[in-house]
C-alpha cells in the first residue's frame, strides 16, 4: 500500500526541489510568503504555551511541527470557501483570516472566540473527534446545491479516522459529490496511541478507496506539496468531481495539549531529531540558503511583525470585557424558553452585584 500511495514531495529535507516540473511553483515570493505565515503561527503557538504556563489562558493544544500542513492547505483556499478545523488547527484558521484575539479568547474559555470575522466561514473547532467531518460534507453539499464554486476543507487527525463519523462523512460526501477536501494531518499519534495501534492499514490515504475517491499521501512538512495537492483537490471539488482525501505526514514536536506529558509514551529524542531534519521552516530556510536568498534581517523583520501582532492580540484578549453570565442563557435558542428565562432571572438576582 505504501507503494500505491507514495509520499508526494516538492522540496526535500535539504531544501531542494525534487522534480523539474515544480521548479516554477517554487518562487522566492511564494517561499517567503509561506515561510512568514509558518513563522507567524509558530510564534503564536509558542506564545500560547507560555500564556498557558502563566495561567493566562486554559489548556492549550499546540501544533508546532505541523505548520506546513496548516499553512499550505489554508493558503490554497479561496475567500468564500469553508473551513472546519479541530482544536489543533487554529494555525490554518489564522492563515485563513481568523482573528488572533478570538483564537486566544477561545483558549481562554470564551464563546466569543468561536466567532469568525465577518464573511469568514470558519466553523468553531471541533472538540468531539471527527464530528466535523459530516458537517463539512453537508456544508459543501449545500454549496453544490446552491450552484456556487465554493468548496470546503475539513481537518482531522490520524486518530479521527477510527471514528464512525469519519466513515459516514466520507461516504456521504462521495455519494453526493460534495466539493470538500478531507485534509488529514497524520502526526502519528492520537494523544499516546501511535498510528500503528490506531489502525491496521499502512496508510490513511488508502482509506479513500473505500469511497472510490482520490487519496494521496504527501509530506506534510513540505508546504509546497501541501499547497499543490490541496489546490488540486480543491480544483477537482470546484469542477464537480467530488471530494478527495489527503494524508499529510507530519509530527507534533510537543505535547498533545498542555495537560499532556509526551515523555510518558514516546521518546522525545525522536522529536528533536525530526526538528533538526524535517522541520517545515528549516526546509524553506535551506531552499533560500541554497538559492543564496536567505536574509537574516528579513527573518527578523517578519518575526518582529508577527510578535507585534500577537502581543496586540494578547492585550486585546486580556482587556476583553469579563465573561457576562447572561451569555450562558441568551444563546441557547433564538428566543429563550421560560425555563431559561426563569433560571436567568433567579440567578442574576441571587448573584446580585458581587457577581458570584
Amino acid at each position, binding site marked *: 500500500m505504501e507503494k500505491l500511495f507514495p509520499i508526494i514531495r516538492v522540496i526535500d529535507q535539504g531544501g531542494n526541489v525534487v522534480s523539474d516540473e515544480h521548479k516554477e511553483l517554487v518562487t522566492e515570493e511564494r517561499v517567503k510568503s509561506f515561510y512568514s505565515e509558518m513563522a507567524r503561527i509558530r510564534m503564536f503557538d509558542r506564545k500560547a504555551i507560555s500564556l498557558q504556563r502563566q495561567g493566562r489562558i486554559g489548556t492549550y493544544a499546540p501544533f508546532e511541527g505541523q505548520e506546513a500542513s496548516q499553512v499550505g492547505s489554508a493558503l490554497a483556499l479561496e475567500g468564500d470557501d469553508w473551513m472546519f478545523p479541530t482544536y489543533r488547527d487554529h494555525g490554518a484558521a489564522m492563515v485563513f483570516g481568523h482573528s488572533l484575539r478570538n483564537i486566544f479568547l477561545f483558549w481562554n474559555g470564551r464563546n466569543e472566540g468561536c466567532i469568525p470575522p465577518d464573511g469568514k466561514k470558519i466553523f468553531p473547532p471541533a472538540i468531539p473527534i471527527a*464530528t466535523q467531518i*459530516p458537517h463539512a460534507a453537508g456544508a459543501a453539499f449545500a454549496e453544490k446545491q446552491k450552484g456556487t464554486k465554493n468548496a470546503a476543507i475539513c481537518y482531522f487527525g490520524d486518530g479521527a479516522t477510527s471514528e464512525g463519523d469519519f466513515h459516514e462523512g466520507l461516504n456521504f460526501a462521495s455519494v453526493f459529490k460534495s466539493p470538500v477536501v478531507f485534509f488529514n494531518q497524520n502526526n502519528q499519534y492520537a494523544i499516546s496511541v501511535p498510528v500503528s495501534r490506531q489502525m491496521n492499514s499502512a496508510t490513511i490515504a488508502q482509506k479513500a478507496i473505500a469511497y472510490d475517491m482520490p487519496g494521496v499521501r504527501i509530506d506534510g512538512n513540505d508546504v509546497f506539496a501541501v499547497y499543490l495537492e490541496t489546490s488540486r483537490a480543491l480544483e477537482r471539488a470546484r469542477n464537480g468531481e467530488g471530494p478527495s482525501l489527503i494524508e499529510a505526514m507530519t509530527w507534533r514536536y510537543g505535547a498533545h495539549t498542555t495537560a499532556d506529558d509526551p515523555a510518558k509514551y514516546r521518546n522525545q529524542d525522536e522529536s528533536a531529531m525530526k526538528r533538526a531534519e524535517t522541520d517545515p521552516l528549516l526546509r524553506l530556510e535551506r531552499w533560500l540558503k541554497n538559492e543564496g536568498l536567505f536574509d537574516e534581517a528579513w527573518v527578523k523583520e517578519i518575526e518582529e511583525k508577527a510578535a507585534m501582532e500577537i502581543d496586540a492580540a494578547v492585550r486585546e484578549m486580556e482587556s476583553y470585557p469579563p465573561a457576562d453570565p447572561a451569555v450562558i442563557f441568551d444563546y441557547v435558542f433564538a428566543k429563550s424558553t421560560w425555563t*431559561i428565562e426563569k433560571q436567568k432571572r433567579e440567578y442574576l438576582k441571587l448573584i446580585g452585584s458581587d457577581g458570584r
Partner: protein
Amino acid sequence: MKMALQTKTLTLVQAITDGLDIMLEDREDVILLGEDIGTNGGVFRVTEGLQKKYGEHRVIDTPLSEAGFVGAAIGMAANGFRPVVEIQFLGFIYPAYEQIMTHASRLRMRTMGHFTVPMVIRAPYGAGVRAPEIHCDSTESIFTHMPGIKVVCPSNAYDAKGLMIAAIEDPDPVLFLEPMRSYRSSREEVPEGKYTVEIGKGNKLTHGDDVTVIAWGAMIPVAMKAAEEMKQKGVECDVLDLRTLYPIDKDLIIQSVQKTGRTVIVHEAHETGGTGSDLISLINDEAFLYQKAPAERVTGFDAPVPYFGFEEYYLPTPKRVAAAIEKVMKF
C-alpha cells in the same frame, strides 16, 4: 395563527405530508433527507409523492447512516438550508445522538448565534403496532434534557400539520415525534394551506374540575378513553394534550392543577427519568399548595420496551389510567 378557509379530511400521516408539501413549495431552503424517503415515499409513506413533485435535489434518499446525514444536515443548516431529516424510527436515532447533543443543539450557543441549526428531525415513535424491537422506543426525555433543541409531539392531524410548519419555520432544531400508532387511526378536518400551531403551547381537550390528566401523542386516546369512563362514574377531567415536551406549557398545566389539585400523567416512556418526573417537579414548583393528592404517573415500566408479544402489558391502558384517576380521587 389560524387562517383556515377551506378544510380537507386527513389522517395524521397525510397531515404531515401536507405540511411538508406546503413548506417545500413555500421555501426553497427546505430540503428533505432520510432513508427511503424518495422513490419509496418513506416506510410510512409520509413523504409519498414529494420527490416526484420537488425533485431529487429537494427530497433526498441518504445512505443508511444516521450520524452521517444528521451531521451533514447540520452543515447544510449552518449553510443556509432548512433540512427536515427523517429518522426511520426513533429507536434508530441513537447513532446520531452525538451529532444532536454536541452540535445541532449547541452550535448557536457555541458561536453566540453566528451559526445556527434550523433543522427538523422527524421520528415515528412508540409501541402498539406489533413492530420488531427497537422500533417502539419512546425516549423523548433524552432529548428534553438536551439544551438547545425543542421537542414536539402531535396527537392529531390538525396539530401535526401546524406543528410541522412551525417546526420548519423555527430558527432552532426541533425534534418532531410522530406517534405511529395514531398515524392512520383517525381522520380529521384540517385546514388547507399554511397555518401554525405554536411550539410550547399545549391544548385542553376536555374540561373537568376533578383531575388534570396530562398526556401526549399516542397516549391521548388512552387518556381520553379513561377520562370518558371516569365521567360515567362522575369524575370530570381536564385532559391536557401537552403537544410540546420542551418547553412545556407551564401556564396550561398550572392553571388546571390549581383548579383540580389532582394530577395523572400518562406516558409510554420508562418512569425513571421520564417527562412525568418533570411535570411533577413543575407542579411542585408552581402549584405545591394546591395539591390535594400526590400526582400519579401511568407510564411504561423501567424495562426496555418489550418484544411485541408483550407490548400490550407494557403500554399504559385506559384501565391503568382510570385506576390512577380513582387513586388520586380517593387520596
